[in-house]
């Protein structure tokens, strides 16, 4: 990930924004990350046509089969077909390959939803905190309090309040992320509010909401894209952790965390139930993190130094 000094010097003379986005598209880390994410999206959406069975179909005689076991399935019309369990089956006889493929849906959905919601809410609160000085102290003390609770604990406490399900898991992961976004946005607002173009807009009589949206918000775009990518990665991890601990999305739903939770009991004999979803999970989070690292290096060099 090193950049030749001479190259860097040449490229920084390019127009700042256009150059940064163009460079980001050529960055190896961005390319690999994006490619793996696209692959996972294809896997998730295409799960039904990728040679899978129903991910929740229970088959008691085919419990705990090792990867590669073949099963002969009798169809309704009397014909038979051979199905190979590439990743084995779990202790209820469900096909792990099918469950892992369908599991990509939940992970990506949670990751993207959490990133979008926490960025949206954090941006709104951060703009207000950074611009309206009288509200700033109150909002930021509240955010400090939220940040003092370790993220996973806060998420655990929140899921304990709601009924288990996709929405409550998303909310539980969003809340701990919001203060971090608020802090970032607020610090950007504070640094641009004294800029001449902002003062000029104030002098010209621009009203505060329009001022924030038109003149202040554009400065937050690049850092928020970077931050959003990292939030997405951590949300995918936290969702898997909650499911794994048995407090997340209900266990029938195929999610990577749930498949692993199911495989815990018989791990010594059948480690495939943990390793296959584990590899998919790690690969996805790694890809999102690589995308984030690459974007940060290109779009937001200042943040690269801070982290």
């Amino acid at each position: 990930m090193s950049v030749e000094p001479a190259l860097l010097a040449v490229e920084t003379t390019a127009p700042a924004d256009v150059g940064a986005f163009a460079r980001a598209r050529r960055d190896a880390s961005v390319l690999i990350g994006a490619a793996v994410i696209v692959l996972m999206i294809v896997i998730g959406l295409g799960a039904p046509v990728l040679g899978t069975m129903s991910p929740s179909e229970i088959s008691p005689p085919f419990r705990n089969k090792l990867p590669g076991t073949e099963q002969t399935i009798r169809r309704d019309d009397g014909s038979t077909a051979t199905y190979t369990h590439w990743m084995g089956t779990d202790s209820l006889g469900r096909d792990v390959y099918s469950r892992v493929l369908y599991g990509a849906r939940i992970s990506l959905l949670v990751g993207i939803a959490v990133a979008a919601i926490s960025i949206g809410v954090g941006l709104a609160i951060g703009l207000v905190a950074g611009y309206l000085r009288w509200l700033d102290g109150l909002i930021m003390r509240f955010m400090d309090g939220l940040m003092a609770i370790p993220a996973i604990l806060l998420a655990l406490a929140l899921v304990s309040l709601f009924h288990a399900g996709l929405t409550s898991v998303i909310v539980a992961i969003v809340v701990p992320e919001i203060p971090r976004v608020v802090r970032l946005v607020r610090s950007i607002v504070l640094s641009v509010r004294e800029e001449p173009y902002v003062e000029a807009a104030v002098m010209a009589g621009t009203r505060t909401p329009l001022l924030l949206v038109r003149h202040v918000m554009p400065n937050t775009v690049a850092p928020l894209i970077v931050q959003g990518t990292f939030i997405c990665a951590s949300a995918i991890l936290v969702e898997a952790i909650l499911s794994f601990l048995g407090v997340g999305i209900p266990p029938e739903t195929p999610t990577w965390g749930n498949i692993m939770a199911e495989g815990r009991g018989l791990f010594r004999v059948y480690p495939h139930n943990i390793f296959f979803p584990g590899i998919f999970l790690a690969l996805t989070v790694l890809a999102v993190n690589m995308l984030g690292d690459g974007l940060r290096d290109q779009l937001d060099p200042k943040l690269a130094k801070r982290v």
Partner: protein
Amino acid sequence: MVGYILRRIISTVPVMLIVAVLVFLMLRLTPGDPAAIIAGDNANAEQVALIRDRLGLDKPILTQFVIWSGNILHGDFGESFFFKKSVSELIASRLEPTLALSVSTIILAVLIAVPLGVLAAYRRGSPVDRIVMGFSVLGFSVPVFVIGYGLIYLFAIKLNWFPVQGYQRIADGIPGFLQRLVLPSLTLSVIYVALIARMTRTSVLDVMGEDYIRTARAKGQVERVVLFRHALRNAAVPIITVIGLGVALLIGGVVVTESVFTIPGLGRLTVDAVLARDYPTIQAVILLFSLVYVLINLGVDLVYRVFDPRIRY
């Protein structure tokens, strides 16, 4: 200086107060009678009435908060109806495994991460640097439980070097205690190593261009001494800060690691309490972990401000 220390200590009070308010509100935001929720499904009307009385649930909400926080300041977190014990006793009985795991993880992580980070900075752009940075991205991406099961599979099941799971108290013998601590600490240290190594690299790189490094080299100082005495010492503040901030990650990791290795600590207690919706215990654990987190960061802040003469107030 004393003024600064006092101000810094006092500044943690509002933070903890807000945490307390949030934790207090947790129960009030759930639909239903808080007393009935605390008592659980098996309680009779008499027990519910007793709790209602003790928490002052018929009084205004502000009074309720004062009663509740007053009890907590006296170390009284209420009764856990699920575990049939007072929450304070419950926490005391789960403290040792979590402390042992956290302390050994921090020591292990610092011992591995700091030299790795220094090495990566020193050999910037080399394969060594790339491996360390690659490991660091990987460490952030592979979930704690996957690492845990991977280590169990390799070292406990295949190689049979360590016990698969479980915990042994120090009082029952130090060798067994240490032997059972190796895999969980390694597991938990991965993400922490990733974090600290990355920060060490950045921060050492920052000071390597300084004049005093050139001076040290010019006078013929050995590179090892230049790196560890001159560079690392001056790069220490951000590294120590990130060790403190990383405690939040560590606490999250403790919850998962204790579940993977069936260690009867506070992390496992938290998960059990959430599964059983045992709110007094959940509240106590959150307050405790947050307090520890805030205090560690207060300590970090004070330590380097006291020992680094360059920082003025």
